[in-house]
């Protein structure tokens, strides 16, 4: 027996798709690496280790409702299922309990989520330098915080984490905001449309004023950021009304998120460059259907839409899958899609505003110094890559073969966007002509022993069902 629909990832997109499928009698199989459903944004929202999780904000708390709906919908949720391969033939391989399981499915919905955009400023690979996303994972999973940390960069997630820290009474050494002044002008033209999402706008503004009221040092329009320290980070220097320097053991960097490309790339789905978000998007239709019809993508893994957008995209993808499985008619799909499509459109206008306001500057997106590391796994600097380029490696994959940049355990997740941008600069071509790494499975390190224990699964094991309880 093959599965009707397998959903990879139990974040907002995957959960909402499972709920929609269940409403129409399709019991999906949801594979998720996490111990609990929720994805990154709603990580542990329904089972927080924090004494008062409401301090993380109403958005986070709203995740609990979706998690509860998902857990009640009857979908088979396999927690701890580490999907390491999704094939263009609809076969899925995942590790669980120390073995590899293979399943077949008619329809696949891939929800790999976002990763943080690399910020390759001098010293970004020093121990003690982390991302705002990592700060959130520590906070949500284990209630761990870093006292006296510096937060540097721009974007909603950065401000949210700072605000969450402040609400929890954690001392913050400073917020070094890199949003360039010109972004405000660029964003102004998108503001009228964004005003239709007044509540979202209000949320953002109140977050910023909350930080301001807390009285921590906030440095605006900061440039020329440099992490200090030899063997581990000791602080951050930058220019904002003159040269500034803050001492800190921990620096959290963040300047936006991009779709996690590894799974959709390894699948061979078509991707397109999006200049507004400065990132590759998976090419899909309105319903997330990819260049391979039986494979759909929803949520930030396709294009950055945020948690709310992911929720809606999951529903739309599910409606299309229901039609493809002939559970609903095309007319029903269209009728049921009307309202979510409208909502998504409204959100996307707000997103356009955010994209312009927090568009990362080239100086932070591209390493400016020859000795800045690009590939942390294989320790390759800009100069190393330039040498490889000069030896004829003009393609990202050729450069990888030449220098080993992108061959380490992260398989290019970190350096991929930087390498394509660097090559575009050096070649004097647009990044969309340069392309990206050829990705391959496994999605993460896979033990040889796990691979050797290979089993094809045609229905759910009792053990797997229990896992969802």
């Amino acid at each position, binding site marked *: 027996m093959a599965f009707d629909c397998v959903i990879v990832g139990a974040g907002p997109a995957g959960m909402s798709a499972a709920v929609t499928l269940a409403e129409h009698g399709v019991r999906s199989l949801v594979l998720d690496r996490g111990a609990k459903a929720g994805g990154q944004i709603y990580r542990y929202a329904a089972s927080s280790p924090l004494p008062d999780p409401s301090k993380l904000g109403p958005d986070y708390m709203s995740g609990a409702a979706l998690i509860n709906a998902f857990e009640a919908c009857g979908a088979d949720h396999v927690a701890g299922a580490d999907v390491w391969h999704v094939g263009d033939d609809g076969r899925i391989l995942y590790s669980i309990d120390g073995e590899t399981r*293979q399943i077949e499915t008619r329809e696949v919905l891939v929800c790999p989520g976002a990763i943080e955009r690399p910020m390759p400023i001098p010293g970004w690979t020093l121990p003690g330098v982390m991302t705002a996303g990592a700060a959130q994972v520590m906070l949500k999973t284990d209630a761990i915080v870093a006292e006296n940390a510096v937060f540097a960069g721009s974007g909603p997630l950065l401000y949210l984490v700072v605000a969450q820290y402040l609400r929890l009474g954690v001392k913050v050494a400073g917020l070094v905001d890199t949003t360039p002044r010109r972004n405000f002008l660029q964003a102004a033209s998108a503001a009228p449309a964004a005003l239709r999402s007044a509540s979202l706008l209000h949320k953002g503004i109140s977050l910023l004023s909350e930080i301001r009221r807390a009285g921590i040092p906030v440095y605006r329009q900061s440039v020329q950021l440099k992490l200090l320290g030899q063997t581990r980070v000791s602080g951050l220097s930058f220019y904002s009304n003159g040269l500034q320097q803050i001492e800190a053991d921990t620096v959290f960097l963040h300047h936006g998120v991009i779709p996690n490309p590894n799974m959709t790339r390894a699948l061979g789905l078509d991707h397109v460059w999006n200049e507004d978000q400065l990132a590759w998007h998976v090419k899909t239709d309105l319903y997330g259907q990819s260049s391979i019809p039986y494979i759909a993508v929803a949520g930030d893994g396709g294009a950055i839409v945020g948690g709310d957008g992911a929720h809606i995209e999951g529903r739309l993808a599910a409606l299309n899958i229901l039609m493809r499985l002939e559970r609903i008619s095309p007319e029903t799909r269209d009728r049921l899609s009307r309202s979510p499509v409208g909502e998504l459109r409204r959100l996307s206008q707000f997103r356009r505003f955010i994209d312009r306001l927090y568009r990362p500057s080239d100086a932070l997106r591209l390493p400016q110094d020859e000795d800045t590391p690009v590939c942390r796994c294989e320790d390759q600097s800009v100069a190393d890559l330039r040498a490889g380029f000069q030896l004829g490696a003009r393609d990202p994959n050729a450069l990888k073969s030449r220098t080993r940049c992108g061959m380490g*355990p992260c398989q290019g997740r970190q350096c991929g966007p930087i390498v394509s941008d660097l090559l575009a600069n050096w070649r004097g071509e647009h990044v969309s002509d340069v392309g990206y790494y050829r990705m391959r499975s496994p999605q993460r390190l*896979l*033990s*040889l022993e796990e*691979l050797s224990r290979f089993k094809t699964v045609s229905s759910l094991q009792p053990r797997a069902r229990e896992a969802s309880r």
Partner: protein
Amino acid sequence: MKTADVLIIGGGIHGSSTAYHLAREGISVILLEKDYVARHASGVNAGGVRVLGRDLAEVPLSKISMQMWQTLDSELDADTGFRSTSMVYIAANEADITTLKQREARMNAAGHTHERIIDQRELRELLPYVHPSCTGGAVSQQDGHANPYRSTNAFRLAAERFGASIVEGTELRNLRRVGSSWIAQTPKGTFEAGTVVNCAGAWADKVALMIGDNVPLNHAAPMLMITARMPHFVEPVVGAVSRQLSFKQFENGTVLIGGGAKGFAERAANKTRLDYEKLANAARTTIDFFPIMTRAAINRMWAGLEAYMPDNLPVVSPSANAENAFHAFGFSAHGFQLGPIIGKVTADMILTGQPGFDLSAFRVDRYDRKVL
């Protein structure tokens, strides 16, 4: 129109090596590569550089090639990553030992003594982590491994230094003989040369057809996987007599596991798909022979597009049906080590008509119908 003495189709190791050996003799060379140099089998293979276990017909070429590898870095002024680590074939049981002894007799009769049979004690000395039940094996001292992408590009860059023109991203659309010229049409214009060499790997049957030779070439996708770095535990390249086992550990600690299992090749799309169930078998075999590998973590799995002849021997030959046309392809997943000598031999065929080796086993027309 761009013209040269010799036009080479295919920027793999054999095309690049041929370009080098011709260019250093002052011959003008244009090499057309449809993707980029070393994009396919030459750049993504397992990097094995071995004489061990070769078909008798290939051994003379392979032995000379192995000598060339020893000094290749200085000859090409490059870092091919070649390391002479030796290679060991493991005998799992007495039947394997018998197989090795029969092979040794044949090899010795032909005057080859580079493969040496070893007993269980020596096997364990060479491979301290091998499963204790393994009974012995064979070793070839000069064998080792190199970095495929870098090696292929070492030839390419050296050829360019001698004036060869390497044209990447240029697919051959049409090739025909007009008078005493070969005229090649590509999306980047027309190229003309007196002599053409077909080094087109998994696409070589299509080029052979344009030249006028039919060959039963097949293509497949041999699969590989590589681990994250692990503590050094094995020096020689490792194979097995009767099981699909093949791996090597590089200096950086990563372990590359091959074994010959094939995935699916979509030649027209430049794509390969993997057969994970077969990779699981390879994982099992590796752990069976080396229990220490239970700790290994796989970082990446891939397959290249490789050309196979029915007898698993290459075509290294003048065209059977056209003048001033030559072939070097179909290396059937063991051509990398032969790169240095094949470029030399092909250049010699073109320049002097004397390859210096008996190449009768590699004729392009060996599958043509024979009449008694």
